[in-house]
C-alpha cells in the first residue's frame, strides 16, 4: 500500500514509468453530468459550477504533481482521452487551459490522438470549433439509440434531433474522427428498432462505432428496476441476434471489427483504448481514474472532495495500489489482448504457455471451439467472441 500523504510513493511509481520509452496514454476523468443515465455506474456528480472550478484546479495540481514525480517530460504521450462523466460540461476555455498545461509539462507527440467524450445536447457549433482549436482531434458521442422512446427509458438525456445536429455540426466544424456509442438489449428495444438505430448511425458515416450490450451494473436505476421486476433483460437469443445483426451491418458498410465491441473505418481504431487491451501503460487523472504503469496498478479515490483535499496537500490521491508479478501482468495483458479481434501474437502467448496450466487449457479451449490460431496469433473464434469472459476465467 502506498501512503498517500508523503511523496515517497513516487519512488515505486517512478521506477516503473521509466522501464522503456514506450508511449504513455493519458486519461482524464471529468466526473460531472447533468443527470445520471439509468444504466450508468461511473463515478460522477450532478453538475455544480463551484465544484467544477474546484475540480479543474485540483486536476491541474495533479498534472503538475505527476510531472514532477514521474519526470514525464521525457515520456512520449501518444494519446489523451477526456472521459467521464461529461467532459463537454467544462467550458472550452477550461479545456484548453488543461490541454495547454499538459502540452507544456508533458511530452505530447505531435501526431497524438486527443479524444473528448461529448454529450450531443451540450455542444454548439462554436463550442465544437473551440474544441478543435484546443487541440482535440477526435470526438466521441454517447448516443446509445436513435429511438426517442428508448432514449427516454435511458434517462432522457438525448433526443434524436439533438443527436443529428451535434454530429453534423461536428463534421462541419472539421472533426474527421468521430465515434458513436450505441447499445443493444435496451428496455423496449426490438430487432426492428435496433435495425433502424443502426441504419441511422451508419447514415452519418462515423469513423468509429462502439457497440455495447446493455449491462446491468449494481447501483444503477436499471438494477433497481430489475430487482423490482419492472424490467427483464432480453433473453440471450435476442441479444445474440442483435449483436450478429449489428456486426453484419457494420462490416458490410466497410467497418473493421477490431475489438469485441468496437468497429472502425480502416486506420481509425482508437489508439488510446488499444493501450488498455495491448498491455500499454496509461496514467489516469481525476477522481476514480485508474492507472497502469508497467507492473503497477492503482486508482484514484472515487470522491471529489477527498481528491481535491489530497491534491491540495501535495499528495497523490491513490487507492488500491498493487504491484503485479511479471507472470500475472503477462496473463492480464494476454487475456485483455484476446479482446482484440486479431488476437495476441503467439510469441507472447508462448512465454507463459511453456511452463504453466496453459499447456493444457489453451488446447482445450481450441478444442471447444472458443480459441483458434491464425496468422501467428491466438484469437477468439467467432463463437468465442460471445464467451470472452469464459475464456478469461479459464486462463486466469
Amino acid at each position, binding site marked *: 500500500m502506498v501512503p498517500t500523504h508523503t511523496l515517497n510513493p513516487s519512488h515505486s511509481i517512478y521506477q516503473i514509468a521509466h522501464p522503456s520509452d514506450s508511449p504513455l496514454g493519458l*486519461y482524464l476523468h471529468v466526473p460531472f453530468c447533468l443527470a445520471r443515465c439509468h444504466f450508468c455506474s461511473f463515478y460522477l456528480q450532478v453538475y455544480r459550477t463551484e465544484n467544477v472550478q474546484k475540480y479543474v484546479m485540483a486536476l491541474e495540481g495533479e498534472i503538475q504533481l505527476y510531472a514532477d514525480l514521474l519526470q514525464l517530460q521525457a515520456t512520449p504521450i501518444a494519446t489523451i482521452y477526456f472521459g467521464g462523466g461529461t467532459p463537454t460540461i467544462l467550458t472550452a476555455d477550461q479545456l484548453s487551459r488543461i490541454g495547454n498545461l499538459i502540452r507544456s509539462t508533458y511530452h505530447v507527440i505531435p501526431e497524438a490522438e486527443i479524444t473528448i467524450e461529448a454529450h450531443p445536447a451540450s455542444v454548439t457549433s462554436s463550442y465544437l470549433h473551440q474544441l478543435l482549436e484546443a487541440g482535440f482531434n477526435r470526438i466521441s458521442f454517447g448516443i446509445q439509440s436513435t429511438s426517442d422512446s428508448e432514449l427516454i427509458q435511458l434517462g432522457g438525456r438525448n433526443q434524436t434531433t439533438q443527436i443529428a445536429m451535434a454530429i453534423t455540426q461536428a463534421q462541419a466544424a472539421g472533426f474527421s474522427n468521430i465515434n458513436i456509442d450505441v447499445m443493444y438489449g435496451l428496455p423496449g428495444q426490438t430487432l426492428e428498432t435496433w435495425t433502424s438505430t443502426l441504419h441511422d448511425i451508419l447514415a452519418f458515416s462515423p469513423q468509429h462505432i462502439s457497440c455495447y450490450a446493455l449491462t446491468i451494473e449494481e447501483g444503477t436505476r436499471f438494477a433497481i428496476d430489475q430487482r423490482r421486476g419492472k424490467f427483464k433483460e432480453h433473453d440471450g437469443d435476442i441479444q445474440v441476434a442483435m449483436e450478429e445483426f449489428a456486426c453484419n451491418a457494420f462490416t458490410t458498410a466497410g467497418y473493421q471489427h477490431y475489438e469485441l465491441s468496437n468497429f472502425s473505418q480502416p486506420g481509425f481504431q482508437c489508439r488510446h483504448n488499444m493501450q*488498455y487491451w495491448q498491455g500499454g501503460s496509461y496514467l489516469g487523472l481525476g477522481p476514480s*481514474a485508474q492507472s497502469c504503469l508497467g507492473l503497477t496498478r492503482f486508482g484514484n479515490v472515487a470522491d471529489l472532495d477527498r481528491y481535491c483535499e489530497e491534491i491540495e496537500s501535495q499528495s497523490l490521491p491513490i487507492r488500491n495500489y498493487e504491484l503485479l508479478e511479471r507472470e500475472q501482468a503477462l496473463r492480464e495483458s494476454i487475456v485483455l489482448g484476446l*479482446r482484440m479481434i486479431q488476437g495476441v501474437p503467439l510469441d507472447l502467448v508462448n512465454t507463459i504457455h511453456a511452463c504453466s496450466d496453459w499447456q493444457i487449457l489453451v488446447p482445450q479451449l481450441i478444442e471447444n471451439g472458443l480459441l483458434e490460431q491464425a496468422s501467428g496469433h491466438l484469437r477468439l473464434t467467432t463463437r468465442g467472441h460471445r464467451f470472452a469472459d469464459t475464456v478469461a*476465467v*479459464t486462463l486466469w
Partner: protein
Amino acid sequence: MSQTSPPHIRNFSIIAHIDHGKSTLADRILEMTGAITQRESRAQILDDMDLERERGITIKAHAVTTHFQSQDGLTYQLNLIDTPGHVDFTYEVSRSLAACEGALLLVDATQGVEAQTIANAYLAIANDLTIIPVINKIDLASADLEGVTHQIEEVLGLEMDNPLCVSAKEGKGVNAVLEAVVRDIPGPSGSPPSPLKALIFDSWFDSYQGAIVLVRIFDGVLEPGMKIQLMSTQRTFEVSEVGIFTPKRTKTQQLRSGEVGYVCAGMKDVADTKIGDTITDASHPTATALPGYREAKPLVFCGLYSTDNAEFENLRDSLEKLRLNDTSFVYEPETSLALGFGFRCGFLGLLHMEIIRERLQREYHLDLISTAPTVIYRVLTTKGDLLEIENPATLPDASSIAKMEEPYIRVTIIAPDRFTGNILQLCQERRGTQQSLQYLDPTRIMVVYELPLNELVMDFYDRLKSRTQGYASLDYELIGYKESDLVKLDLLLNGESIDALSFIAHREKIQQRARQLAEKMKTLIPKQMFEVIIQAAIGNRIIARETVSALKKNVTAKCYGGDISRKRKLWEKQKEGKKRMKQIGRVEVPQEAFLALLKVSEE
C-alpha cells in the same frame, strides 16, 4: 492433593436438554469453589473447542475436579462432569453417568421439561443414580417455577418438595445446590486396598504423550510407575503420569478409589483406549471387569470427497487424526465414478456429521464435497445373502433383491399443544405411526411416533422447527429394522448416471422426491456452454426431467481502464469458484448440488 477419603468425594454429572444452562452452572460452581478466579473466568469455560465456543453448545463431556467447603464443616472433593445436551451426543451422557453416583438434572424455568430432559433423566434412572432436579434461569421474567415444578413431578416422577431454584447466570442458589449434592448424593463405595478397577470413560490424543485416558477409579489406587493392564485386550502399559483437571490439567501423586482423573501410559493405538474398558493392576488383576457400555454405533452415513482428488491422502490423514479423539465416527475408503476417491463416513447423527465436516474444512483446510446423508439399509438377496447398504449406489439391481429393511426410530416430540395438528401431519407425511399422545400440562403435549430413520435424516428437524416456530424439542432412539418397500433413484446429467446422487426412498415417496430433486438441481447447476439435461430414473425408467438451457453469452461489453481491475478481481473469484466445481463428464457441478436432496422444499 487427593487425601480426602472416599466418603468425602462426590461424583456427579450435570445433565439437561440443550441450552438449559449446564455449562453455565459448571462455570459458577468452579468459580464459587475457587477452581477458577473471576479473572480467568469466561462463559462456558469447559467448552474449550473452537466449534463449541462458536456454536455455544457442548459437544464433548468435560470432567473437572474442585473442592467444596460444606456447612457441615467438611471439605468435599467434587468431580463434576458437564455433558452435552444434543441428542447426537447422548452417548457422551451415558458414559459420563457410568462414572458417577449422582446427577444434577437441570430444567430451564422458561422452557420446562423437554425431549432430552426426559431422555437424560431416564438414562440416570437406568444407571441407578441419585437425581437432583434443579430449576434454572429463574432470573428471567418468563420463568414459570410452579408449572415447571409440576412438570418435573408429573412427567419424571421426581419428588419436588423443596425445589432447588437457581440462576446459573447470576450464581443465585448455586450454594444450595452444592449442599444438596454433598447431602443427597452418596459417596463412592469401593476401597483403596482392593485390586485396581478403573473405568475408561473418555480418551483423546496428545501429540506429546499419546493417549490421555479419563478414568473413574472404582477400587484400588493408580499411580505412576505401576504396570496396568487393559482387560479387553490384555495389553499392559506402564503409567507415566496421573492427575486431575482443575480445570487445568494438574499432575497428582495418585488416583484413589472413588476419584476421577486422567492417566497417561504411553498408549499409542486407538484400540488400546477403548471407552468402557476396565483398567486393572497387571500384577494383582481384579477378577471381573466393569460392565462398560454398548459402543456408540453410527446411524447416519455420507460420502466425503475432496474437491481436488490430489488431496485424498490428506483427507485420509485428517480423518485418522479426528478419529483419535472421536471413536464414535467411522470411515472407510470408497470410490465414486463421479467424485473419485473418497470415504464413506458414519456419524451418530446429523449434527455430528456437520461438526466433523466443519472441522475437516476448518482445521485441516480441506475443500469437501459431501453426499446426502443416508442410513444403513438391509438387503436380503435372492441368493440368500444379507447385505448392509451404507451407500445407495451400491444397492444391487432390483431383480436380485428378495426383500429390504430399513432402520426405525422412536421419536419423542414435546411442544405447545397449539402445534399438535402440524406435528401429527408432519409425522404422518414422514410415514410415522403414532404410539402415544399425552398432555404434560394443560398446554404442552408429548407425542411418540415410530418413524423410519431415513425420514428423519431428510430434513425432518428443520421442518419440525418451522412448523412449530422453533418450540418443539425432539429426541429419538433406534428401535430396530422393519421390512419396507424401498427403491433406488438415480440421477443422470446429460444421460450419465451420477452415482454420488443416487438415493433410496420408499416407493410411495419416490415420484415426489424425484421431481423435487430434479427441480432443485436445475436451480443449482449453473448454465454451461451447452444444454444440461437432468433426469431422475428408477432403473431404466425416467420419472422426472428438467433442462438447464445453454449459456448464450458471457462477455464484458465495456472493458477500459476503469473496468480492468474490477474484472481482474471478478475473474479471480470465478476461477476460485470453478476450482470448487466438480467436472462430471463435461458438466460442471457445484458442491452444493450434491446435497440438493436435503434442500428440496416441501412447503
